[in-house]
């Protein structure tokens, strides 16, 4: 019935207004974020690890779902850009008192915030906030999605792309496999969108049927249920975290059985190209989705991912906050 849903992410000039999801972003914007991130990687090696770009700006980390790890990387990124960072863990405070999500947002708007970094357990929460800001005519505050439900984790997707480009230079000849719990993974969704937008010709997902969303192939991926087949000839192996609560029950019988079929072992990895890289968004379950030998091995680029993550978040924040 409706026309295309309004794109909240880009302003009238096609510049990034919010970063809510990778889906629908033009390739040019993704490439620009990756290009912008490159010089930021070197800042960590300076004596003064601080740039003045966001001096005087207030970045609010709105974490409606706890994640010390993600919050810390955003905090480091914002602080390296000289922003004032205010951390709010909201799951315990205001919502318990009956304040709605948008009440909370209105309060923070009144505190002259410049940027919201939002983590929420419900898919679409950052969209709701960005839509609300548009409705109240606020074009000053930028929203960065730091992970919403199963929907998107765009900065993670971007740092993964940065990592791939760092090691593989070019996207146009790659075969990439994403392994594990795609169904519940916002990371996987962002990776799939980013890879397809950047022109990766073959994106594979490898998982049991219980961990794949229906119609996943409509997102432009090839579905495999067998690791040997799925890993054959791939350049990049992206493993996903399997949440503890999903290891036993109706989705999977046991972590051991998952490891047996879908754990990334050195033997299975031999199917991939000799120079394949192995990635993981962290934190890893060693011996479940990934074998320690692989996690600590020569193919793994898991720690560089973390380093690049800060640069990518700095790039996103500085692209959003600049005039």
């Amino acid at each position, binding site marked *: 019935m409706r026309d295309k849903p309004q794109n909240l992410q880009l302003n009238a000039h096609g*510049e990034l207004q919010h970063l809510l999801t990778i889906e629908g972003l033009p390739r040019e914007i993704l490439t*620009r974020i990756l*290009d*912008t991130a*490159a*010089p*930021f*990687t*070197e*800042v960590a090696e*300076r*004596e*003064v690890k*601080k*740039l*003045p*770009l966001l001096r005087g700006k207030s970045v609010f980390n709105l974490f409606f779902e706890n994640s010390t790890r993600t919050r810390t990387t955003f905090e480091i990124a914002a602080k390296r850009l000289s922003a004032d960072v205010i951390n709010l863990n909201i799951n315990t405070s205001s919502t318990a008192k009956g304040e709605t999500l948008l009440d909370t947002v209105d309060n923070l708007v009144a505190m002259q915030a410049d940027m919201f970094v939002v983590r929420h357990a419900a898919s679409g929460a950052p969209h709701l906030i960005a839509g609300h800001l548009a409705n109240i005519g606020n074009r000053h505050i930028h929203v960065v999605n730091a992970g919403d439900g199963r929907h998107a984790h765009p900065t993670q997707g971007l740092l993964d792309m940065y990592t791939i480009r760092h090691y593989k230079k070019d996207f146009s000849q790659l075969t990439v496999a994403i392994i594990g719990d795609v169904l519940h993974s916002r990371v996987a969704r962002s990776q799939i969108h980013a890879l397809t937008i950047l022109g990766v010709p073959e994106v594979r997902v490898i998982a049991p049927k219980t961990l794949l969303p229906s119609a996943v192939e409509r997102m432009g991926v090839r579905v495999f249920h067998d690791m040997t087949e799925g890993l054959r000839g791939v350049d990049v192996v992206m493993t996903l975290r399997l949440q503890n609560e999903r290891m036993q029950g109706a989705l999977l019988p046991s972590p051991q059985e998952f490891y047996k079929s879908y754990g990334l072992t050195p033997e299975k990895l031999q199917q991939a190209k000799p120079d394949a890289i192995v990635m993981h968004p962290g934190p890893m379950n060693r011996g479940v989705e990934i074998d320690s030998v692989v996690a600590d091995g020569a193919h793994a680029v898991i720690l560089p991912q973390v380093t690049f993550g800060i640069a990518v978040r700095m790039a996103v924040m*500085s*692209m959003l906050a*600049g*005039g």
Partner: protein
Amino acid sequence: MPKKPSLPKLPEAEALLRTLVAAMKPHAGPAMALVGIHTGGVWLAERLHAALGLSVPLGSIDVSFHRDDYASKGLRRGAKGSSIPFDVAAAEIVIVDDVLNTGRTIRAAMNELYDYGRPARIDLAVLVDRGGRELPICARYCAHTLAQALPAAQELVLARAGDDVSSPLSLMLKDRHDA
């Protein structure tokens, strides 16, 4: 039809470069370290570094992170990052740029250098001083000062005829497009 104001004839860049080398030569010692500002300043610094036979490795600076027009214009596209391959604290640094105008770029470059440590000394070498200063900055080494100020809408830039370090350099005028 309004007549365009006549512009001064631009000097030869290669000739100015020789002048600059001559001016710097007496001061070139083991502590002199060059850092070029992207992009024209880097080309120039590469030529100076070779001509002066300096031992401290060449550095380069991208001022994007310290530009004072970030709030209004955003992050410049295609930022390359800085590379300072020597210990800043011990160095007598000469910032090299093609054209000195408002002085804002040099201010940003000095801030960038300070992120790497406290330099013993900073000097400035430029090919052309076009006037129009907005900050208290002046070049120690300057090959040419334009007698007549250029219109602010005109940008004076250095061009290089090839990708090679030794490709000939030339000065040219173009309209500012970032206004």
